[in-house]
């Protein structure tokens, strides 16, 4: 039986401490935004969750490519784990965005390119899970999962560009802003520090969860093999 690696325990503790620190920073360290008020504080975790969502789907696509080349089931576990984490964080991203949009845009939802892309991404990876559920043979399930993770990930930028050809109202906080964006603001140094620390924290959460999920996946594989052995 595998014991939990020491490093993973350390990572768990570091991640929890960082999350507490980031939460404190969001509420007490960062100044209140002049126009939007306290609801702007959602921004720090909103962007960080979106970043983790994108990162997970990138990891899943890369793991898919490696699986198709090498044929090692380890990479299939990585891909599935990343997709599961990505779905959760992409959902957090959408929900926190809605909470912010209600007072600022005066609506829970609008079909802006980013919102459209986020929704489509969520749907693609839900379809990924449904595809896997429908296939019994583990090798075929892994191959199809890898193929769909690649195809899905490649379509995301195209969805974004096609939706962007419509006019956008989503603020671009980093880099050039599109004319007509509503709810934009400039970050003060304290805000920027909080924001960057949130990004780092969420990246740590991602790595920690991914590690745990991969371990669970491997143990599940082992249990499956042992069960097959006892049946024989």
């Amino acid at each position, binding site marked *: 039986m595998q014991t939990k690696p020491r490093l993973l325990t350390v990572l768990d503790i570091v991640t929890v401490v960082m999350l507490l620190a980031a939460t404190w920073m969001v509420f007490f360290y960062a100044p209140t935004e002049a126009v939007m008020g306290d609801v702007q504080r959602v921004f720090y975790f909103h962007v960080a969750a979106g970043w983790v969502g994108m990162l997970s789907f990138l990891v899943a696509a890369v793991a898919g490519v490696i699986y*198709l080349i090498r044929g090692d089931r380890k990479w299939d576990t990585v891909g599935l784990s990343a997709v599961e984490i990505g779905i959760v964080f992409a959902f957090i991203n959408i929900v926190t965005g809605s909470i912010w949009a209600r007072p600022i845009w005066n609506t829970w939802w609008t079909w802006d390119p980013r919102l459209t892309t986020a929704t*489509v991404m969520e*749907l*693609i990876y839900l*379809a990924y899970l*449904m*595809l896997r*559920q*429908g*296939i*019994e043979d583990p090798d*075929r399930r892994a*191959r*199809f999962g*890898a*193929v*769909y993770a*690649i*195809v*899905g990930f*490649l*379509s995301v930028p*195209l*969805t974004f*560009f*096609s*939706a962007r*050809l419509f006019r956008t109202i989503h603020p671009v906080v980093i880099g050039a802003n599109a004319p007509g964006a509503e709810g934009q603001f400039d970050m003060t140094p304290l805000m920027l520090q909080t924001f960057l620390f949130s990004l780092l924290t969420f990246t740590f959460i991602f790595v920690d969860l991914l590690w745990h999920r991969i371990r669970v996946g491997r143990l599940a594989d082992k249990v499956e093999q042992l069960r097959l052995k006892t049946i024989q």
Partner: protein
Amino acid sequence: MQAKPVKDDTTLLPRERIAPSRMPASGGFLRALVAITWKDISAELRSRELLTAMLVFSLLVILIFNFALDLDPATRKQSTITAGVLWVIFTFAGTLGLNRSMATEKDRGCMDGLLLAPVDRSAIYFGKALSNLVFMLVVEIIVLPVYSLLYNINLFDPGLLLVTLLGSIGYVAVGTLLSAMAVQARTRDVLLPILLFPVVLPVILAAVKASTGFLDDLPFAELQPWLNLLIVYDIIFTAVAFMVFDFVVEE
């Protein structure tokens, strides 16, 4: 008298028959591709089950939209409605065709036969994609005049036809790959639209926008980004499907 023909059969003919299909050259690839497409088309010409289903379904969708969207003369003059309804028809009818086309291969064990054939796997992909494209274009060529007739709108615009062709290529390129996966799953008939629609959204978006533009006689420069997007999508996803199709049909 009897010995000579027997000798000819065993020595000359088999070699001649086998040689072209085993050739790895591009001539063999193209011939295999055309053979697979032709097999689908001739099967369809005899059974007519796929095209009939797609066409009747398309007409039913037109009928439903007529009442669901209340397409009175004022509403249907808006080209957004026309382009939108047309692309919904093509998307849904296309799913029906893709599902059926792959299911016949799977159900009667034809896919195994195709895989055993000494040809490149990508020839199977391109052959199936080409026949799917032909079916989709046939449906579109029939639906467009019928829609023109029923709603008194002139749809014979070369630009609109170009958009329809480009959109169908992108749709079929991804659809053929995903339907090959969907038929091998337990929930196959429900699975294809769920897999396909989120991935193919850029095509639908660009095709609807470009069709609307052509119907409104917008200048070509304004529509170019949408056409570019369609072309880029077609190229990227044909290439990706070509690369990964091997893994989808592998046993």
